[in-house]
């Protein structure tokens, strides 16, 4: 009896450990962004405290490390030099703040960007990100404003800023 009950508890223990490990593995397979703590988190690129809820960005590595930025341009700069500075990990996902919903992070690769002089972003690229074309179109009525995608933003930061 004793042996059986002991083996039962051992079995249970092994099962629980397996479940725990499995859930841990499942979690770590999907690195997630972390909400920005405004007025407390610092921009990794420019050291400034992130405080304006209209602006901000995040880069998540495949090891689930989260880098926070005060603006799209700071993240773009960091992104462009990322592989050189971090040879042992890769960029898993990039996020920017939805201009229309303060503090909300949206997928940077799918966002629609508008560069306009009417925006004053912390580092002066003056580019805001939107979730949908419809939301961005409101800010594209002026001829001087320019629509960009993520590649376009990287290109602008590299050559035209």
């Amino acid at each position, binding site marked *: 009896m004793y042996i059986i009950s002991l083996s039962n508890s051992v079995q249970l223990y092994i099962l629980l450990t397996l479940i725990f490990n499995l859930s841990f593995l499942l979690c770590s397979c999907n690195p997630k962004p972390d909400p920005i703590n*405004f*007025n*407390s988190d*610092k921009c990794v690129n*420019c*050291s*400034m*405290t992130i*405080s*304006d*809820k*209209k602006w901000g960005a995040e880069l998540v590595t495949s090891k689930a490390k989260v880098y926070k930025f005060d603006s799209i341009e700071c993240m773009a700069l960091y992104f462009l030099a990322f592989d050189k500075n971090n040879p042992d990990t890769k960029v898993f996902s990039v996020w920017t703040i939805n*201009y*229309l919903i*303060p503090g909300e992070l949206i997928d940077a690769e799918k966002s629609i960007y508008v560069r306009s002089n009417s925006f*004053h972003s*912390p*580092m*002066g690229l003056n580019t805001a990100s939107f979730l949908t074309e419809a939301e961005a179109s409101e800010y594209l009525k002026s001829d001087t404003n320019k629509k960009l995608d993520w590649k376009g933003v990287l290109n602008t930061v590299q050559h035209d800023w």
Partner: protein
Amino acid sequence: MPKKIYILFASFFISCIIFFTALSTSNKSEKDVKTTQISLKDLVSNAAPNDTITLNGGYYPESGIEIYKPLTIIGKNDPVIDGQSKGKNIFLIKNDSVSLAGLTIKNVARHALWDNAAIRIDNSHQCKVLNCKFENAYFGIYLAKSSNCEVIGNKFQSQGSHESDAGNGIHLWKSGHIHIKDNVIKGHRDGIYLEFGKACMIENNWSENNIRYGLHFMFSDSCKYLNNHFEHNGAGVAVMYTHDIEMINNTFANNWGTAAYGLLLKDIHDSKIYGNQFVNNTVGIHSEGSIRIKVEHNNFIRNGWGARIFANSNDNFFGSNNFISNTFDIASNSRMNFNKFIGNYWSGYSGYDINLDGWGDVPYRPVRLFSLLASQQEPVMLLLHSIFIEFLDIAERIFPVLTPETLIDSKPSMKIIK
């Protein structure tokens, strides 16, 4: 019945005043408003260019007061303009030579997308804001593309907290030759913020309990700030992506926290830091990518780190400073050093002066081994002041292996420099 007649006369007289103040639009007239019945918007729109409007007390629950002509508004006996957290800016100035003085302006609407201000000066020059009080303003004074303006003797008080939105007390954007003097700014995001500013003069201000920085320069060249006091801010002053800044006789005190500095320098060159007091800060000066900065005659007292200088800073000069009772005098993140330290007083110096010339005969090494370890592995800080660490430090001082070999003060002063 002489009493009744007297009252009748008085009421007639008062109504006359009201009538005339409302109607008279003559040039250069003096207006004395004694009632709150007339809206400030009407007064402004009825006034002729170069008029002076005098508000004698009163309460004006208004916002969106737009000024398109040269005008002076003077408040006597504390008139209050209350935005009631509605609308956008309370005052919007869109003409040169507008002066506002002695007003209390409060409750600016907070909005996620609009930077609403108590006074927004847009594309206007020679404007003045003097001796006004700002209570619960989102942004206090917002100057955009304006020049030669004066912001003097104002008080800003906002209830900014880490969780809530807060705007800047005085915000400059693409503005030059602005004189900011004798202001007291509390509870904003940045006390004073300059973005693309030029040749501004900032003196005798008191900036306290602001969430981010007491004073913040971004891309703002050739500015000067002197005799200011920065206390209990997220960080005292941040000077970023800028050159030719003069920082003279300021006090940076009690800026404590993980990301708190007295003075944060980032990508700045050719500037001067002279005669300042850095007292009780986590880091007195934090320097990243700064070039050709002269740091002279400053006092660094009871800071966690007196100065933290990253290896990408070079050709900086530290001379005639006092480093007194700092946990670490200087820290760096590398063995390389391209900066010069000479003739400073270090309270941690234990050398001798045999020839009695006032200068120590043995060079002082201001970087401790432990500060190098702590900059690489922050949790190591737990071991601070342990015997083992003291022992390592002494060994490192005698045979430097890890600390920057060239980061020495070859002529340390034996006495506090006055």
